[in-house]
């Protein structure tokens, strides 16, 4: 079967969406030459009217997309850097997100915001290494963080078809992931539905984005030690697949979350809060996260030291299994 990379899957999702629906168009910085490779080939295929290079005016072009959406289009914006979402936070959280309710349901704002390369990009340091998906989820903007190429394809297609704003994070550490795929089976993946990435009995590890792959490899490793890890990948940060999560935890009764957010009120905090409210666990749950207020230092070892890693995950799993 052919190999499909994560980035290529996204590219394909864009192409299929442009092809299917004339109201879809792309805008962003350096997307015509495809500096990030996300939009490779799309200018040639769809022309400059549908692949718009923008000046460095993030706030205006984000609102521009909102305006275009109000007029019936389905804009897809590529942001080159995760922290650009900070720069346009008002335009997403306070404009695009609020139009539907504030107008009494008169309009829809189907804009998709894509961050190609979120989280640490090795060597890009403090202002280029954020992973702010929790921020968007907290304000209630639909937010997806796929781990695998097929999900990247399926969730990007769904995000574009969704009638609300959706933020799509493509973690830098996942962009190179490849999957054997029969291309004819590529299909939309619904927003808000998780998946069991690996089935197990002893403990549920909730992981999202690139960390799903770390969780899977830890699960492999621990299988050798007689520990059966279930990996639950929510795929969507908000709205969360509570039923999927509940089903997994009902089986394992133990919970660890690995999350590339800062710790305080991060994605993992929400999972633990839900667990505290609803689940019966046999041991206190754990979270493996970035530290509070994390600013990624440049030096490689420091950058890595701040990100949640496999060793920490193993330790957390062992801790929740301790009193078995």
């Amino acid at each position: 079967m052919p190999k499909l990379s994560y980035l290529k899957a996204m590219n394909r999702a864009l192409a299929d969406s442009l092809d299917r629906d004339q109201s879809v168009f792309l805008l962003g910085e350096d997307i015509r030459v495809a500096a990030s490779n996300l939009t490779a080939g799309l200018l040639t295929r769809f022309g400059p009217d549908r692949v718009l290079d923008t000046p460095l005016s993030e706030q205006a072009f984000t609102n521009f997309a909102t305006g275009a959406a109000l007029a019936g289009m389905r804009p897809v914006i590529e942001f080159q850097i995760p922290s650009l979402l900070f720069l346009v936070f008002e335009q997403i959280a306070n404009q695009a997100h609020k139009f539907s309710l504030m107008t009494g349901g008169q309009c829809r704002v189907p804009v998709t915001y894509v961050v190609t390369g979120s989280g640490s990009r090795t060597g890009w340091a403090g202002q280029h290494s954020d992973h702010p998906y929790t921020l968007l989820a907290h304000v209630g903007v639909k937010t997806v963080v796929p781990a695998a190429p097929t999900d990247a394809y399926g969730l990007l297609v769904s995000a574009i078809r969704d009638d609300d704003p959706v933020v799509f994070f493509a973690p830098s550490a996942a962009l190179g992931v490849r999957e054997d795929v029969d291309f004819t089976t590529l299909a939309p993946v619904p927003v808000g539905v998780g998946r069991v990435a690996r089935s197990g009995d002893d403990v549920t590890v909730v992981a999202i984005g690139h960390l799903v792959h770390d969780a899977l490899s830890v699960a492999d490793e621990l299988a050798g030690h007689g520990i059966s890890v279930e990996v639950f990948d929510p795929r969507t940060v908000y709205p969360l697949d509570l039923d999927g999560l509940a089903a997994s935890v009902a089986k394992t009764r133990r919970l660890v979350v690995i999350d590339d957010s800062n710790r305080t009120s991060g994605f993992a905090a929400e999972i633990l809060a839900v667990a505290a409210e609803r689940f019966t666990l046999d041991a206190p749950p754990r979270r493996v996260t970035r530290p509070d207020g994390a600013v990624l230092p440049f030096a490689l070892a420091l950058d890595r030291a701040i990100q949640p890693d496999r060793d920490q995950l193993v330790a957390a799993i062992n801790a929740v299994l301790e009193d078995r």
Partner: protein
Amino acid sequence: MSTADLYRTVRLIRRFEERAIEFVRSGEIVGGIHPYVGQEAIAAGVCAALTPDDVITSTHRGHGHVLARGVDPRQLLAELMGRESGLNKGRGGSMHAADFSLGILGANAIVGAAASIATGAAWAHRRQGRDTVAVTFFGDGAMNEGMLLEALNLAALWRVPVIFVCENNGYATTMPVESAVAGSITGRAEAFGIPAYIVDGQDPETVLEATTAAVERARAGEGPTFMECMTYRFDAHHTFEHRARLDYRSADQVAFGRSRDPVVIQGARLPDDERAAVDAEIEAVLDAAAGFALGSAHPDPAEALKYLYAVMP
């Protein structure tokens, strides 16, 4: 548009605002409003130059814009009173009046935000093969917001059919325009290659004429135009100022500012009896609006989150 029609519009806005202020005082309108009193000629003149297919965006001081655009005063007043029959079903309030059926893409409470939204909408319409023109209203204070300046650049670069209408009423809340704007307002627009004009914002006919030219230019595919409409805010920045006196405009200045009243200016162009007839008609409309709004149901708290999402799994 006839002399009488323009008069009707400015008079309607004036009296709507005066009555709304009373409803703020009596507590029927909660949270207050930013009165448009004194600036009516701009909304009236600009909207008179548009066709039904055109679109506008408005501001925190937006009642005049939407009334001039043809919004039903009953629905607007009901909105200000937070009723289910309101323009936005009571969800928006004074600062968010929207009527998509009239091309009103919403008032915006964030200064400077709407210009880029209007630009995007105008661009989209053109891309869809329509010859829609968009108008975006904003104040002198908005000229210092980076996102608005960015929008000027996008509009000019891509020759978007959008008209930037700056209502220079001399103040951003209490900040005088001279203390806030280095250089000139039209100079800023011109720096982006956008033709910019200073327009007498107290005379509806002058505004109409200037806007008509800008609309023609936009429809002809020649891109954006910028109008700086010189005006004066006769009343408070916001009705909270009626309670908390803020010391930033002298009585003399206010008196001088009020001396050129758009309602008087346009009214003088009509015979007395015709004007009186319009006035009476408007009072009847507003009486009906008040009755409608006061008699309308409040939204059901159980539906507080209705419309939050278009779709939700």
